[in-house]
């Protein structure tokens, strides 16, 4: 059940205190702030999401692991400084902890990318791991590969927004928090990215299907 908390925006135009629904992670966050060992629950909840985000961005399992590890260690050591800032517009289930966590992940991924510049890294679309050749999964695998490659060809912020939206299933408001953009800008970013991916994947306007077949 959602409790309520006072929220004060940092933006001048929104400086009036507002009542906001609490972060859905708040009980876990408060417990971890009291007892750091309790951070495990948050870790287990968000491990795959953070790792997925890092892997989509870096295209390398080892680099993704490094970024994931740095993200959670940083989150744990800085948890006492975390302050909830959920807004009503973030929705009932909004989680400002996860916005904060993905902000950290984004910074760690950027740092990992800087370090990786010294060594060649394949583009995301070319690094799909060959899965086990199960016939039943083959079609699905090809579709996933095509979707992934199309996403990998998007420029930086568009790709990040799409990964956060479709893979990590963050809301537009949450993505805006992670990227430091307005919600409107994120909506436009994603809309343009979708049109770009549609063109790239050959999804026709009339049928809505992919080249040579229906979805």
């Amino acid at each position: 059940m959602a409790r309520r908390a006072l929220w004060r925006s940092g933006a001048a135009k929104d400086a009036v205190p507002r009542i906001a629904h609490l972060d859905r992670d708040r009980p876990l966050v408060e417990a971890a702030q009291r007892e750091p060992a309790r951070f495990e629950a948050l870790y287990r909840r968000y491990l795959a999401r953070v790792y997925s985000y890092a892997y989509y961005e870096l295209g390398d399992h080892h680099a993704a692991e490094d970024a994931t590890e740095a993200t959670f260690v940083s989150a744990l050591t800085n948890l006492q400084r975390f302050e909830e800032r959920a807004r009503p517009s973030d929705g009932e289930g909004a989680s400002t902890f996860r916005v904060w966590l993905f902000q950290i992940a984004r910074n760690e991924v950027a740092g990992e990318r800087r370090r990786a510049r010294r060594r060649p890294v394949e583009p995301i679309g070319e690094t799909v791991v060959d899965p086990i050749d199960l016939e039943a999964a083959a079609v699905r695998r090809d579709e996933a590969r095509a979707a992934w490659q199309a996403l990998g060809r998007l420029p930086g912020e568009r790709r990040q927004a799409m990964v956060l939206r479709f893979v990590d299933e963050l809301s537009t408001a949450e993505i805006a928090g992670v990227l430091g953009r307005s919600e409107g800008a994120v909506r436009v970013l994603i809309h343009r990215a979708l049109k770009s991916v549609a063109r790239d994947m050959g999804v026709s306007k009339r049928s809505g299907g992919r080249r040579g077949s229906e979805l």
Partner: protein
Amino acid sequence: MSLIRRDGGEIEALITDRYLDSLLAIQPSPSLVLDGGPLGSDPSLSAAVRAVSRRLATDLPRFHPSFRFEERLALRLAEVAASMRLPVAAGAEGALVPIRELHPATPDSLRATEGDDEWADARPLLIGGAVAASALSLAGAWLAWRRRTSPMARAIRAAHQMRQPGGGA
């Protein structure tokens, strides 16, 4: 770009955003559910955008790191957590205790539990490449399962824990 065109683009983006909210809220088969729904037939939303959104929502894989990495990082976080407690707890011995041992198997409302993961759906889940180094040899396994809820996922985790030193009989 003119103001009118920009406004039009923003409106279109807003409609797309609402569609995505609905699409991503529906699991596990958004393409089946939304095709005949009100948003699915909204003429103001581009068919191509609709189609590619459905495709991405169902086809984009998710990734999970290897279980070995997961447990190793859990241990490191336990060490960090223990070091954070030391200055506070006067007289504490400072022995490192794995996080799992601090949490007995008894029900705990503050722990992430089975079914708690809203991320669990029918999407493909790809285990990280590092799992190749694990005893399970699941490198590149392409599995569509409900994490934490499927018998297979539980069996894999149980098998992995059995292979850990002191992880079971």
